[in-house]
């Protein structure tokens, strides 16, 4: 479990080794403060949606899931994609209402990022990886939390670097998007070092 957790954060980082959620990653990383808001929302949503999608996938979609109704041959896995997107949108909506009611300070801090997360491919990608790699419920929870933390760590690193890059004298054509990609490449290169690390 610890190993899965650490792999999800470092070696199998969603952004840096699977390129998931790059659009948001590039767009919202100009300032550290906003990046941290998005990162927090990401960790919360990922930790909730992956286990919930596990339950949906395991008890409603997999072949044989309807055996107790006398339908042992029903295989609904082709509905996986639509089901996952629906679950993510619903979880984000419920989370938004719950936060608004019980933790208004956090709700205000997350602001517009919470609804935006619905169309973030890192969230959907996390759930699809869970289905492809056949994690069980505990592993899904750990994987969801770990990959959320990994994504948050990556965007915090990039935002901190970009804040300082503003004072750098970058060649005109590389300014903005270009240099951001090169920096991400260098961060990612640093993270590949973790792929050989294993726990004793």
């Amino acid at each position, binding site marked *: 479990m610890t190993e899965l957790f650490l792999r999800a954060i470092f070696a199998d980082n969603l952004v*840096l*080794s*699977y*390129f*998931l*959620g*790059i*659009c948001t990653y*590039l*767009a919202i990383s100009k300032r550290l403060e906003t990046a941290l808001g998005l990162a927090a929302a990401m960790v919360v949503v990922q930790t909730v949606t992956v286990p919930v999608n596990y339950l949906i996938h395991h008890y409603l979609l997999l072949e044989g899931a309807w055996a107790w109704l006398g339908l042992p041959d029903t295989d609904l896995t*082709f509905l*996986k*994609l*639509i089901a996952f*997107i629906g679950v993510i*949108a619903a979880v984000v909506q419920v989370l938004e209402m719950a936060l608004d009611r019980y933790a208004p300070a956090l709700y205000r801090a997350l602001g517009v990022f919470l609804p935006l997360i619905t*169309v*973030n*491919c890192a969230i*959907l*990608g996390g759930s*699809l*990886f869970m289905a*492809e790699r056949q994690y069980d419920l505990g592993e899904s929870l750990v994987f969801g939390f770990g990959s959320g933390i990994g994504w948050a760590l990556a965007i915090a690193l990039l935002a901190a670097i970009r804040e300082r890059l*503003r*004072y*750098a*004298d970058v*060649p*005109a*054509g*590389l*300014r*903005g*998007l*270009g*240099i*951001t*990609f*090169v920096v*991400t*490449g*260098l961060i*990612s*290169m640093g993270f*590949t070092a973790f792929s050989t690390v294993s726990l004793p």
Partner: protein
Amino acid sequence: MARRNFFTPLIDENPVTLQILGICSALAVTTSMTTALTMSLALTVVLMASSGIISAMRRHIPAQIRLILQITIIASLVIVTDLILQAFAFEISKRLSIFVSLVVTNCLVLGRAEAFAMQNPVGRSILDGLGNGLGYSLILLIVGFVRELLGLGTLFGWAILPTVDSGGWYQPLGVMLLAPSAFVVLGLLIWAIRVWRPVQVEPDEYPLAEARR
């Protein structure tokens, strides 16, 4: 007019390098030309079909629920594409892993539906979808070309540069097959395009660096 819809997204308004749309799936599949080409085809087909369908329905879609309708249409098209790939090209569909499914959340598809197909007639929307799909494919294939050629010495699996292992002279650059190289290659590609088309250069946010010189 129609020609402009088709040609501007290729370089001048390229969805990937200028509008930062659809990069999520663009990089993961570029380790080889075969996967890059399959992914490009899948995305272009989904984009054309979704633009066409959404444009045909645009007068009947209520504004409040348009996003969920668009996502449902796109998701259905992606599921069909994914199943066709699994049926006829199982090997490649295994290598593409979850990335075909992720076309659903590709901002490019939803972006074109929302920005273009909702206001324009069917023919032009399909053409716009084709243009944007090809603009995306172009970037994907260039990055795939560089990474496969330098990383393995092959193109589409055919040996182009004979490698040291098979008795040739080329020592493959292993790093090209790892994730970091995709970011760096795309960054440099953006640089090259912006040197060629200086209109696309972003303004300096903090022009003091200019004054210091």
